[in-house]
């Protein structure tokens, strides 16, 4: 006997003790699919036959079953299940998880079962037990269907049991193998002409004949109707004829809408009110033949309430579908697909208030649906409603999948007055866009974020806690925050000489990782600044959803506003905008906004507090102390001669301290306004539709140089050179360049592979290494780090954690940008940016 089971079902094995359920389960199911009550009894009591543990055992069993079902796994319950009380919770569990309950009954003679039990030492209970179970089982056979089991198989003899095979059936809604392409069309409501117009516009070859309409795409694209073909509009029968024909020919797919189902109920003779446009449809159908009406009935009956397609990446249902119901089968799933969920309240027009499941949607599959007319189709958390109210005088819209392009044709007229004004809904939606909503569950707790360049990246809970506080209290509006820059590792540590860092170590690292060409960029000593600049405020509203906050933002590496002074920020953004305009970037990149990664100088502009609270006091205190110590030592020396070499030593130290003060002073100058600032961009991170990580760093340098040419005093070009790592001369030249830079007080340089993404033998190569000059490092390692006794030990620094961190943050930063340009929902961008911030709180030697 062939037993068919839905691929996702909760299977109850039913049979008396000794009927061979466990053997059967072992034969036909994976061990992990089978939950045995005996085994659970053992789990809670160490004795599989301890009947007093039965209740706890079933608690455990149901708990595990629930977890499996929530994860979408077929589950088999191996217990006698002969009593109705035992089966009730199984049906309930199946319903709770929207899977189909199935029963396989091993209906074997009581004597046989008893005989088998006698062979087992642990089952020495009286014959009456099996006899009683046998009676209960016979009763069960009559009531299984009534109890809610949707699939029932009964095996009546040992032979039948032995011969049984199990076939797992795809669920009706499972079309994961269908990858499209599709043109998913919103609620038609009898708008036949618009449907044909839309299909033509989509490239279908249309046979425009109400009596025998047909449309086929020459390249085999398929139309996909989201339901509500009928009611309200002028030509429901023609629409039905078209869609039925297309489905029959394999040119279309269709899910039912609530109106279609209601029509079928009416045609079945049920008592249905002729409201909401059904009267019009019935009247139109009166002109059709009874055969056609029969055909309509069976067509609607054949429709599956929702589909999961394209390997789970696409879900189509009339009223949408929340994630927990995708690919499930139950009355609830069907109800949701047809009507959605309502909150039980009604609005000012007397219409039910719908639970906006899409706001909470966090699934990976795109969900395309109709049902509720919207003024314009817009993505919200990977869901989109394509019902643009054609019958109400709006438009008929299709979503081209996988291209995700929208194609519309306007309605020829308003066929039916809308109950709730469409425009009003638009105004309401614009006022409170749901795309902006961030949920605490999007960021808190341990999180694993998947990135395209480096796979999953883990954010630990305590780091998320820290990031939440900083993000909430100090960060800019998250809608601007599309990127946070990664930390950068220094070059390897120089093993000898008076410096810790040197270009050779950087070159060596990259060459050893298979990189042939690098770009060396002058490293400016200022503060990291990321700028988002829009063409005008309207773009800020339209693209970023941020009204009244100017044309952009300038923020620090931890997402804080760069300036406390808003007017300084807007002056700077304004100059950037002018430069972008003069350099013709808006047209050239077909973008209304840009995101730039830059260094803003002087250091003292942003780090004033730090300088005053930390760097300057070190200089002041050290110089004061050194002077006092040195004069005391000199006095002592003049009295008693040599003071154990201390005079020389302290003279050397005083020298260090002077150099330290000189080092930080170079990066400070007074700022009284924007004219004292320098903005040096080095990455053109993103513009509309593109993250420019596909362009190499030479392109970035050259492109940004063009921008700087138009940038007046504010924009500052970054010096750079390309170095061939297979040429000694080329490297020597670069080293000489670095020496010149650092000797004249520069911080040093950044060395990057020419390409943004390079993979070496151990995966992703560092995107950049910094190579800092000897004097600059006094600010980092302290005034006296160059003294031999210190530097020898500092060489033991470990770069591993910093480099790992740099790569993870780099991957998250790029991921955030990618998601932003792909117009993913805010929470998807935010989780990456939040991740960078959280990772920044990981413990790493801050001097690196």
């Amino acid at each position: 006997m062939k037993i068919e089971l839905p691929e996702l079902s909760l299977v109850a094995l039913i049979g008396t003790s000794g009927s061979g359920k466990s053997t059967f389960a072992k034969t036909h199911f994976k061990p992990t699919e089978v939950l045995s009550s005996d085994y659970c009894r053992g789990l809670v009591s160490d004795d599989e036959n301890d009947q007093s543990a039965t209740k706890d055992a079933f608690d455990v069993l149901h708990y595990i079953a629930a977890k499996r079902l929530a994860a979408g796994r077929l589950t088999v319950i191996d217990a006698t299940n002969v009593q109705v009380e035992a089966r009730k919770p199984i049906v309930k569990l199946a319903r709770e998880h929207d899977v189909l309950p199935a029963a396989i009954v091993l209906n074997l003679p009581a004597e046989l079962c008893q005989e088998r039990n006698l062979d087992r030492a642990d089952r020495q209970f009286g014959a009456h037990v099996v006899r009683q179970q046998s009676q209960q089982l016979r009763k069960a056979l009559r009531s299984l269907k009534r109890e809610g089991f949707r699939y029932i198989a009964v095996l009546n003899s040992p032979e039948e049991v032995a011969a049984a095979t199990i076939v797992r059936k795809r669920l009706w809604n499972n079309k994961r193998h269908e990858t499209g392409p599709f043109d998913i069309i919103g609620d038609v409501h009898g708008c036949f002409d618009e449907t044909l117009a839309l299909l033509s516009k989509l490239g279908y070859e249309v046979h425009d004949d109400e009596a025998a309409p047909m449309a086929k795409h020459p390249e085999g694209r398929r139309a996909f109707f989201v339901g509500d073909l009928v009611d309200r509009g002028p030509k429901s029968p023609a629409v039905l004829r078209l869609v039925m024909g297309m489905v029959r020919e394999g040119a279309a797919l269709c899910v039912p809408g609530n109106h279609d189902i209601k029509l079928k109920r009416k045609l079945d003779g049920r008592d249905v009110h002729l409201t909401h446009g059904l009267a019009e449809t019935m009247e139109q159908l009166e002109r059709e033949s009874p055969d056609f009406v029969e055909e309509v009935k069976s067509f609607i009956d054949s429709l599956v309430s929702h589909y999961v397609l394209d390997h789970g990446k696409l879900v189509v249902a009339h009223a949408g579908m929340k994630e927990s119901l995708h690919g499930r089968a139950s009355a609830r799933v069907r109800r949701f697909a047809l009507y959605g969920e309502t909150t039980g309240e009604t609005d000012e027009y007397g219409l039910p208030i719908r639970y906006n499941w899409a706001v909470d949607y966090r699934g990976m599959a795109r969900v395309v649906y109709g049902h509720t007319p919207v003024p314009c189709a817009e993505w919200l958390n990977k869901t989109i409603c394509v019902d643009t109210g054609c019958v109400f005088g709006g438009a008929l819209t299709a979503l081209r999948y996988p291209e995700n392009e929208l194609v519309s044709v306007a309605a020829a007229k308003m066929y039916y007055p809308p109950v709730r004004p469409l425009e009003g809904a638009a105004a309401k939606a614009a006022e409170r866009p749901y795309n902006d909503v961030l949920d605490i569950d999007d960021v808190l707790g341990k999180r694993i974020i998947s990135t395209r360049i480096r796979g999953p990246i883990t954010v630990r809970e305590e780091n998320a806690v820290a990031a939440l506080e900083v993000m909430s209290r100090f960060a800019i509006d998250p809608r601007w925050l599309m990127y946070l820059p990664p930390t950068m590792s220094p070059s390897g540590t120089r093993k000898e000489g008076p410096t810790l860092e040197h270009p050779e170590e950087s070159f060596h690292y990259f060459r050893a990782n298979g990189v042939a060409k690098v770009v060396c960029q002058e490293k400016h000593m200022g503060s990291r600044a990321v700028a988002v600049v829009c063409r005008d405020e309207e773009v800020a509203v339209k693209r970023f959803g941020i009204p009244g906050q100017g044309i952009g933002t300038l923020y620090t590496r931890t997402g804080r506003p760069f300036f406390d002074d808003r007017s300084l920020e807007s002056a700077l953004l304004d100059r950037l905008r002018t430069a972008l305009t003069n350099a013709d970037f808006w047209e050239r990149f077909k973008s209304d906004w840009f995101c730039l990664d830059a260094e803003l100088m002087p250091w003292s502009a942003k780090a004033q507090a730090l300088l005053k609270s930390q760097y300057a006091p070190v200089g002041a205190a050290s110089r004061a102390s050194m002077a006092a110590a040195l004069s005391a030592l000199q006095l002592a020396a003049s009295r008693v001669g040599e003071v154990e070499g201390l005079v020389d030593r302290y003279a050397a130290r005083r020298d260090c301290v002077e150099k330290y003060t000189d080092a930080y002073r170079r990066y400070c100058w007074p700022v009284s306004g924007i004219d004292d600032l320098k903005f040096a961009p080095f990455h053109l991170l993103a513009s509309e539709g593109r993250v420019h990580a596909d362009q190499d760093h030479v392109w970035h340098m050259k492109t940004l140089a063009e921008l700087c040419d138009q940038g007046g005093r504010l924009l500052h070009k970054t010096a750079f050179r390309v170095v061939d790592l297979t040429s000694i001369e080329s490297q020597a030249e670069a080293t000489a360049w670095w020496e010149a830079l650092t000797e004249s007080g520069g911080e040093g340089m950044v060395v990057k592979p020419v390409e943004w993404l390079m993979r070496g033998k151990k995966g992703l190569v560092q995107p950049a290494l910094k190579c800092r000059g000897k004097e600059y490092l006094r600010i980092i390692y302290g005034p006296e780090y160059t003294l031999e006794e210190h530097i020898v030990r500092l060489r033991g620094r470990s770069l591993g954690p910093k480099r790992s961190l740099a790569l993870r943050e780099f991957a998250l930063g790029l991921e955030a940008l990618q998601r932003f340009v792909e117009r993913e929902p805010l929470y998807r961008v935010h989780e990456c940016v939040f991740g960078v911030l959280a990772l920044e709180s990981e413990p790493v030697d801050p001097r690196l």
Partner: protein
Amino acid sequence: MWRVQLGGGARRSESRSDFMLLTITSTHRPATELGYLLAKHPDKCQTFSLAYGEAHVFYPVVTEERCTAALLLDFDPVGLVRGRRWGQHSEGTLAHYVNDRPYTASSFLSVAIAQVFGSAMKGVSKARQALADTPLALDVCLSAVPARGGERLLRGLFEPLGYRVDVQRIVLDEAFPEWGEGNCFELRLRADVRLADLLTHLYVLIPVLDDQKHYWVGDDEVDKLLDKGAEWLSVHPMREQITLRYLRHRRGLFRDALRRLMAGDDPVSEEREAEKEQEEEALERPMSLNDQRLGAVLAVLRDAGATRVLDLGCGEGKLVRVLLKEQSIAKVVGVDVSMGSLERARERLKLDRMPEIRRNKVELFQGSLTYRDNRFSDCDAACAIEVIEHIDASRLGAFERVLFEFATPPTVILTTPNVEYNGRFQSLPAGRFRHRDHRFEWTRREFQTWCTRIAERHGYAVRFLPIGVEDAEVGAPTQMAVFQR
């Protein structure tokens, strides 16, 4: 010798104190006797090995009239840092590595004094016991002493002990006069005092100047320090401040993480945060505004018959404590974005010692007012007491939605300062907010306009109540809005 890593420190601050040069000058004739008292020969330069470096003792001046002993500390910061794991306790921020600690006086000085001048500090001298028991004219110089409390703190600490205090503030950087003067001082103390007392005073008070923690000395060191100062400390007018410095709380993992994040931005330390709170409290204290606020909130909650109350931005749990005592309230949920505040709330409420029934009434968790949160939904009243003014104006829209669109509690109570009243605070400079973290302070009109718009949008009725005594012209110091739907 440059950076000194201190076990628990890590709190960045302007004042750091590690000593570099201490000189003690005696003019008690014959001044050379100082060598006997210190038990260090004036013609030698001696070096002592300390746990974290070296100390050198030598005499720059030795005459009958005047004898100066110098204690020069030489730390080995690299040795300290090496072998430690990043992130444990404190090594979080860069600030920790470039600091003035090695060049200024600090707790290390205490260690050095105790070790190098141990017998002198005990008042014991084999050769000159009588002299050791006699007050001498002593003159002490510390080359660089940081003191965040400034000159006042220095004087406050030493003058009650009979010292003449001379303080010279060290300019931050003469190249940038606009940066002003720092909090680092050259300190000179003069008094007729027993050498042992002088050393003990330095031993106890120098670390007090230091803003840092002292894990490095170990917890028992606290007792030792207090023990050293026992006699005079009990009558010192600043005894509380002195002892409090040693009684700071341990910090959790997340605080280190947070500190690392904050590095490079405005220095925010817990102490600073607490200080800000205190400033605001001090301002409002005379009218016990906080009590009146909490009372008014309670009155509204009683009136609304609320049983499950959400306290958004609960801080250290002042309102939570009040609500816990209220029988009609079955559940109090305190939310704050700062885990540090929540931890202090737990401590102050003594949650772990609370009877279980009461304990079950409280729930405290980290949450943010700009992130939608399901946990906010299950309450019949939400309070945000003196909270909105800490949210950036540009983020108020998100706060509004989180509370009024998604959480939708039947009753919402908001309070915020009435900026019109600020002029009535004598000590508040014009134009300054009451708290340095306030992003804005609103007039009554501004607050009411904002609230009314929210109420309209989300189907609430709103009414406004004054908190504190109303001034005919400028209104009450605090304004309250009560939303109900």
